[in-house]
């Protein structure tokens, strides 16, 4: 029986994790996401989850490594500075191919910055903030509903590919309340067997070892190649995005998460001013929806990227567009949320500029 609630994004994530059969949560408080550990400390513990506030984010991510390696569904969440502290651990988890769920409720950086919402951690999330060649599967919810839904999806993808999954969201989505529907989800039906997990070696099999160390280059390269092969599979199968009003649009905006919501408003406002703009909202930031960009490049006069940062995803858009049409950008930083009106204004300038160019 599914259930309707009015909840903060953070709480929705927490509630969904319980329903998704998350066995263990290890975390450290940080604004604007502490509601998650608070919710779980009450509801999670009551409903049988292992919920621990531990000494630091470094400890938390390494506990995730241990618990995931032991076959559990494990999750941690944090916000920007805390996620930076986890980078070594994340790189280890990616290399050891441990399925787990991470969430970054992005706030304004760099440094201690501000606790206001931001998308400044895009690069860190998709290009790898840790060392070495690895990828997280990165999902970007744009509503409280998705803050819940992507928890199930995240755990399932993590298990399927033995890969860490990151939900990249921001302080506003974490703090805002919306209606959220919790569907029926039976963790037992979704959890995959994990014969590789360290649960105690029975006499019928050789020891299971979770490690990311491969001293000899040729062995390590094999691991790298295996990872790359997996990433190609993920890129082939797991790209997710949403198109709005792209059919016949002059310019398509590209935005994810909160800014994608604001861009929907821009579409509405644009219509009022006779502007024909659409929106491509990447849902997976890795794998990135390059292909649809290539396709749209054949149809539109330009793309306009909106981010709450200095311009990060815009590079992926440019890689997808590959010079075929101009790519514009509008961004705010430091926790400032752009309004639909200011985006529209900047978009109009962009549209003028490319019209001019085309005439030249």
């Amino acid at each position, binding site marked *: 029986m599914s259930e309707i609630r009015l909840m903060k994004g953070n709480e929705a994530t927490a509630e969904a994790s319980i329903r998704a059969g998350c066995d263990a949560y290890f975390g450290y408080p940080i604004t604007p996401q502490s509601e998650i550990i608070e919710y779980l400390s009450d509801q999670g513990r009551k409903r049988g989850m292992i919920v621990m506030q531990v000494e630091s984010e470094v400890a938390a991510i390494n506990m995730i490594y241990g618990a995931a390696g032991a076959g559990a569904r494990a999750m941690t969440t944090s916000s920007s500075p805390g996620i930076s502290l986890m980078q070594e651990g994340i790189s280890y988890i990616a290399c050891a191919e441990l399925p787990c769920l991470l969430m970054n409720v992005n706030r304004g950086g760099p440094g201690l910055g*501000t606790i206001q919402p931001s998308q400044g951690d895009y690069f860190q999330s998709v290009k790898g903030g840790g060392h070495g060649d690895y990828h997280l599967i990165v999902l970007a919810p744009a509503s409280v509903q998705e803050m819940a839904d992507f928890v199930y999806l995240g755990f399932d993808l993590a298990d399927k590919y033995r890969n860490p999954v990151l939900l990249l969201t921001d302080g506003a989505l974490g703090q805002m*309340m919306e209606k959220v529907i919790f569907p029926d989800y039976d963790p037992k039906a979704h959890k995959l067997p994990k014969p590789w997990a360290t649960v105690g070696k029975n006499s019928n099999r050789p020891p299971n070892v979770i490690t990311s160390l491969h001293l000899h280059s040729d062995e390590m390269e094999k691991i790298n190649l295996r990872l790359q092969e997996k990433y190609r599979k993920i890129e082939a199968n797991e790209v997710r995005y949403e198109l709005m009003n792209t059919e016949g649009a002059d310019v398509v905006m590209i935005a994810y998460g909160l800014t994608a919501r604001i861009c929907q408003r821009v579409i509405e406002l644009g219509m009022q001013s006779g502007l024909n703009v659409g929106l491509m909202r990447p849902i997976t930031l890795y794998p990135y929806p390059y292909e649809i960009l290539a396709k749209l490049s054949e149809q539109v006069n330009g793309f306009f990227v909106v981010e709450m940062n200095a311009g990060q995803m815009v590079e992926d858009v440019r890689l997808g567009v590959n010079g075929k049409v101009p790519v514009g950008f509008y961004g705010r930083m430091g*926790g400032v949320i752009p309004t639909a009106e200011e985006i529209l204004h900047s978009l109009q300038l962009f549209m003028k500029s490319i019209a001019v160019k085309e005439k030249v």
Partner: protein
Amino acid sequence: MTHEILFAGFGGQGILSMGMTLAYAGIIEGKEVTWMPSYGPEMRGGTANCIVIVSDKRISSPIVGKFDALIAMNQPSLDKFEKAVKPNGIIMYDSGNIIVPPTRTDITIAAVPVETEALKLNNLKVRNMIMVGAFLSVCQVVETGTVVKALSKVLPDRYHHMLKINQEALERGEKIVIEAATPLA
């Protein structure tokens, strides 16, 4: 129909829960809602505000720059957000806390003496519900009755004995605006 409403005032005035109650009522009536608080340095001690959107259709941006209505519970909030109300919009303010009233002439303005009214109910805590009631009488985002139902969901169990007084407050709020001749524009 979409209503975009800003609630603003001091922390401790029950600003966030006013908005939350309204949002919850929206859900009960099958509508789409978003509730977006200001969080951060202002949250404790200083000012607090939240944007509530209640709509019949999927809500695009939860952040809006212009509002259909402003509920202002203190002077700084009124001063800051007066301009943000759309033409033909509404400002409803606590006349006990606000000395300098709004000056716009293209909108509906209502002063609600919530403290005075709350004292009549012998309970200062229900000031915010008086305000909500007053607001609903001017702008029927949801039914007052739904708000009462919403309250029973929003209030923690240990406060359920307060449901009745809150309901009275809502009704009181509704009535005073209806009764008021001025300063309704």
